[in-house]
């Protein structure tokens, strides 16, 4: 029996919005992971796809094959018998190498000044934390990472600027990695040589909602070496500590 009382809302004629309590918490994320693994395994007829973010899951269905009532009845039945989320296999933890040196860390000196911390302590704090993926959105493969230490919380920029692919940034209470060049309002503190989203690969994005992520500091020489390996397809995303 799951602990959270869920809400179900019709979202247009072909989708259901499932809601958890409106807060950002790892326990809710674990429960959402559990819920999604049920959707994956049950392969319910009529369900086309879904996505999730923090405390909600949106399920898109084919109204010719199922309907809102049938779907929520099924989901409620699953909730009444599902196991506790602590019994689910723990998520993988991915390691993302990051270079915090110029020219890859355009906003790092300003950010350090703004929060009143020296650059090395800031890097240690950023790399010393395990983050969780609370959502993937904004761009294909953009990871919303929660768990940023409070002392690194910083309001977003008022105007978005051009941000390069691989930029590792902080914004509000979150940190994230830009999967491609894009306009962005977060503060860029480093860059990873990894490609986190590639439409030509299957799956295009290895990281899933609920997974854990840790950053590892590399210098600009290592960045260049890894970047070359990534371009040759010789450096896959690795699990932390491997």
């Amino acid at each position, binding site marked *: 029996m799951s602990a959270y009382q869920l809400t179900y809302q019709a979202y*247009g004629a072909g989708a259901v919005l499932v809601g958890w309590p409106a807060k950002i918490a790892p326990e809710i994320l674990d429960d959402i992971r559990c819920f999604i693994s049920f959707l994956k395994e049950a392969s319910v007829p009529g369900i086309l*796809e879904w*996505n999730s973010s923090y405390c909600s899951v949106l399920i898109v269905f084919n109204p010719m094959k199922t309907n809102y009532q049938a779907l929520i009845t099924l989901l409620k039945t699953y909730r009444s018998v599902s196991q506790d989320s602590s019994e689910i296999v723990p998520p993988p933890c991915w390691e993302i190498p990051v270079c915090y040196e110029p020219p890859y860390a355009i906003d790092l000196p300003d950010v350090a000044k703004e929060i009143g911390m020296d650059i090395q302590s800031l890097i240690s704090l950023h790399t010393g934390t395990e983050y969780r993926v609370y959502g993937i959105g904004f761009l294909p493969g953009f990871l919303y990472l929660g768990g940023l230490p409070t002392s690194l919380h910083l309001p977003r920029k008022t105007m978005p600027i051009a941000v390069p692919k691989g930029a590792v940034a902080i914004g509000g209470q979150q940190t994230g990695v830009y999967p491609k060049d894009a306009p962005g309002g977060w503060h860029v503190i480093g860059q990873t040589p990894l490609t986190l989203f590639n439409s030509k690969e299957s799956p295009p994005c290895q990281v899933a909602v609920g997974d854990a992520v840790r950053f590892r500091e590399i210098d600009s020489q290592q960045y260049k070496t890894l970047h070359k390996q990534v371009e040759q397809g010789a450096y896959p995303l690795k699990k932390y500590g491997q």
Partner: protein
Amino acid sequence: MIQVLHPGLYTSIQDLGRLGYRHIGVPTSGPMDTVSAELANALLNNDPNDALMEITMLGPRLHFLEAATMVLTGAEMSARINDKVLLTNKPYTVASGDILSFGRLRQGMRCYLAVKGGFSAHKVMGSRSMYAGITESGRLKAHEVISFVSSNALIEPGSVGKGRVSPHHTFFHNATLPVYKGPEFDLFSARQQSILTSRQFTVSNHSDRMGYQLNEAVFKHRKSMITSPVLPGTVQLTPAGKLVILMKDAQTTGGYPRIFQLPESSLAMVAQKKPGDPLGFGLL
């Protein structure tokens, strides 16, 4: 094969879109106006998912490098094959060497060009729909050559119907869109809800395949919410009181209150509106 002599304002290849990747942040894409796109494929006895060309506001100049049976649906854009004027919603057979060009926009915003069997743009993640970052480019470029799926893109002479499906004028001119309530609609007061459902808006210049922004602000609000999933057809209300209708290439999550959800048929009507056109919302 067809060669792009001039790409026009914004011309892309679209099938019904990329399903099954929303959980990694990939938008659906697909035709902005599915009603007209499906009609184009139906008129050629194509599969509904066959890829067609979506032409926006200012049409391209296209060179047929082989004979084909084709049809145009959606916006009326004064299309011609060589010097011959073409009607929408009516199949034509064109010869190798023919030039398809477009002129003044008379009605609507987006026109669909289908050929028998569909266009054979490269499939990425299960779809031929162009979207920058997933496919090489989000739109067609000058000199590009697009193949046809079928080695013979002709419907036998004599089998091409001579009739024409008449364009649905209310589809282009209906300014009140039927909509469902969005998840956050009920967070607003009765007075605010009545403003949202009775006010007339106009389409702004900031309107593209990602979203349509409307010009008129309604009321400022401070209803913040935690980022949550959105869909094409979701209408968001920004803190400054502006409405944004999310379209086919929109991102998959958003942080503004979702006040309405448009059914596919209403979304198709939005896709035919151009900057300055009036538009309002009526609850289903």
